[in-house]
C-alpha cells in the first residue's frame, strides 16, 4: 500500500503538471478562433449532456496543423530556433568548459567560493540581468564607450538588436547550466589517470584530449542538453536583445497568441514545438539512464 502511494506521487505530479495542461492545449489547437471570451469555439458544455460532448468533438479538426504546413514561416522559425540553439550551445560549451576545468583544478579550499560565484548571478532577477546587457550593448552603451575611449573603434558598433546580442545573452544566461554538470564530472576525475597517461608518453595536451575529455563526456552531454532544450523555445532573450531579423519560434508563438488572438494556431505551434523537443529530451533521458547503469 505504502509503496503504491509512493509510486503514485510522481505520476500524479506528471498528470497534474504535464498531461492535463498538454491535453488542454491540444484541445484548443483543434478548435477554431472566435470573437468571444475565451476567443475560440467550441467550448465544452457539460450542461447539454452526452449530446453536447459529442457535438463538441465533432467540431474539432486538424485545420490549424494544415495551416502550419501551408505557410513557410513556421518551419523556418522552427529551423532557425534549432540553429540558434545549436550554435549557442556550442558557444556555451566553449566558454563553460575552461571555467569548469579551472574550477575543478583549483585548490580544494577555493572550490566552494568559485561554485558560489557561478551561482551568484541567480540571486538577481533574470530580467534585470538581460536589461543590464541592453545597457552594456546599446550604441551609447558601456561597451561602445570603452571601445571608443581606447580608440579601438571610431564609430559605435551596433550590437544590440542583432543576432550577436542574442548569442551573448544566451551564453551569459545559460553558462551556469553548462559549467555545473561539467564541473561535477571533472571533480570526480581521478588525477592518477592523467599521471598514468603522462607516464606512458602522452603530452599534457594529448592526456587532456584522450583522458580528460572522454571522462567528462557525461557532464558535457548533460550540460549541452540543459542549455539546448530551453534555448529552442526561448522568448525573453530574443525579444529584448534581438532585432527584427531574429526569427525564433517562441516569438512566433507569442505573435499568434497576442497579435493574431489566434489561440488555436498558437496552441498548434506549441504542440509541434513540444514534439520537436521530445526528441532531445528522450535522448537525454536515455543517456542519463545509461550513465546510471554504468555507475551502478
Amino acid at each position, binding site marked *: 500500500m505504502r509503496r503504491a502511494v509512493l509510486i503514485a506521487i510522481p505520476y500524479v505530479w506528471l498528470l497534474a503538471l504535464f498531461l492535463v495542461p498538454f491535453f488542454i492545449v491540444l484541445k484548443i489547437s483543434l478548435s477554431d478562433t472566435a470573437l468571444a471570451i*475565451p476567443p475560440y469555439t467550441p467550448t465544452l458544455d457539460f450542461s447539454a449532456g452526452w449530446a453536447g460532448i459529442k457535438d463538441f468533438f465533432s467540431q474539432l479538426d486538424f485545420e490549424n496543423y494544415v495551416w502550419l504546413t501551408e505557410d513557410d514561416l513556421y518551419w523556418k522559425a522552427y529551423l532557425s530556433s534549432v540553429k540558434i540553439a545549436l550554435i549557442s550551445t556550442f558557444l556555451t560549451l566553449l566558454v563553460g568548459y575552461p571555467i569548469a576545468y579551472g574550477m575543478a583544478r583549483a585548490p580544494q579550499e577555493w572550490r566552494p567560493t568559485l561554485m558560489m560565484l557561478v551561482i551568484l548571478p541567480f540571486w538577481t532577477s533574470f530580467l534585470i540581468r538581460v536589461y543590464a546587457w541592453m545597457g552594456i550593448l*546599446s550604441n551609447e552603451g558601456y561597451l561602445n564607450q570603452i571601445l571608443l575611449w581606447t580608440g579601438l573603434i571610431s564609430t559605435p558598433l551596433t550590437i544590440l538588436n542583432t543576432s550577436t546580442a542574442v548569442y551573448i545573452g544566451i551564453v551569459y544566461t545559460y553558462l551556469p547550466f553548462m559549467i555545473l554538470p561539467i564541473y561535477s564530472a571533472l571533480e570526480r576525475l581521478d588525477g592518477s589517470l592523467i599521471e598514468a597517461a603522462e607516464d606512458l608518453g602522452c603530452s599534457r595536451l594529448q592526456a587532456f584530449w584522450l583522458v580528460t575529455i572522454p571522462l567528462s563526456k557525461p557532464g558535457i552531454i548533460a550540460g549541452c542538453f540543459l542549455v539546448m532544450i530551453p534555448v529552442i523555445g526561448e522568448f525573453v532573450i530574443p525579444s529584448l536583445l534581438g532585432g527584427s531579423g531574429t526569427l525564433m519560434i517562441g516569438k512566433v508563438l507569442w505573435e499568434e497568441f497576442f497579435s493574431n488572438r489566434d489561440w488555436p494556431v498558437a496552441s498548434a505551434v506549441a504542440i509541434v514545438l513540444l514534439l520537436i523537443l521530445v526528441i532531445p529530451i528522450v535522448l537525454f533521458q536515455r543517456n542519463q539512464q545509461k550513465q546510471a547503469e554504468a555507475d551502478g
Partner: protein
Amino acid sequence: MTIKTLTMTAVIALGTSAAFAEEVRVYNWSDYIDEELLSKFEEETGLTLIYDVFDSNEVLETKMLAGGSGYDVVVPSGTFLQRQIQAGAFQELDAAKLSNAGNLWDVIQERTAGYDPNNAYSINYMWGTTGIGVNVDKVKEALGDDVALNSMDLVLKPENMEKLASCGVHFLDAPAEMIPMTLQYIGEDPDSHDPDVIKKAEDVLMSVRPHIQKFHSSEYINALANGDICVAVGWSGDILQARDRAAEAENGVNIEYHPFAEGSLMWFDQMAIPADAPNPEGAHKFLNFILDANNMAAASNYVYYANGNEASQEFLEEDVIGDPAIYPDEATMQNLYITTPYPAKTQRVVTRLWTKIKSGT
C-alpha cells in the same frame, strides 16, 4: 468541528471580500500618467490602487478575451475597444456614479462614439497622433540641412532609410497603425479592409525593412532620449516625453515630434471597465477621479498628450495646449485620419504581413 470549520471559512471569505473591496486595479499604457495622481487618488478615496502597465493593445486584448484579468479599469484604443465590446468584454458605465462626466469634450465624444456608440462603455482618457520623432542634428547630418522632417519620405523611402540606418530607426510594433500609414503614403485608403489593397503596403515596408533596427512600442522613448536612435515612428506624447528627458539630461540630444505632412493617424485611448471587474464601484470612482478637470490637466501636463476633457483645458500649461503637435490646429486636424477594426480574416492577413515585414519571412 464542522461548525468551527464553517465559521472559519466564513471569516476567511469575509476577510478576502473586504480586502478586495479596498483595491482598485488599473491597467494602463506605460509612461501614461503623472504618478503623483495615483497617490492622490489613494488619499482621496482611501482605496488601494494597484497600477500595472502594458505597451500594446494586442497584449491588453489577449487578457480581456481570456477573461478574469482581475483589472477594474483598462485602457484600450478605439478600434480595439470596439471589437472587445462586441466580444462582451466590458460593462456599461453607470452615469450616476460619474458626476464629472460633464467635463468631457463634445468634439472628441463625437469621434469616439464611432467606436463606442453613445459612449456607453468608455470615457476618453487621452488622444493623439502617430507621427515621427527625429533627432534633428543626426538626421540633418545624414540627409542634409534642408530635409523635410515631417515627411513620410524620411522613413518609407529606401534611399533615405539607408542613410539613417547607421544612426538607428525604430518603428512601432503596431500593425494596425503602421499598415494604414503605409497605405496613406502610397495614396490608398488607410482604413482599407481589402486584403489586396493591404498587400500593397508590403513592397514599401519590405524595401525599408533592412534599415529598421527594431519594431517596438515603448523602448523608443529612452532610445531617442539617449541618442541611441535618431528616428522613431511613434506616438506623439511618447516622443515629446523623449524630448523632455533629453532636455533634462542635458545630453545635447535635440528631439522633435511631427505629425506626417501626408496625414497622420488619430487615435483615442478609452478607459473602460471589464465585464468581470472585481470592484466596479472602485472603478467608477477612479474614472470619476480622472474626469476631474484638475486631475486630467495634471496628467496631460505630465505626459504631453491631449485629452478629451474640455474643462481641463484652462488648467493646461501653455506648452501643452499651445503646442500644435499636441493640440493640432484646424489645418492639421483636417489632415488626420482614423481607422476601424479589422474583421478576423483581414486581421490574419495584416498580422501575417507584419510578421513577414518584421522577420523577413
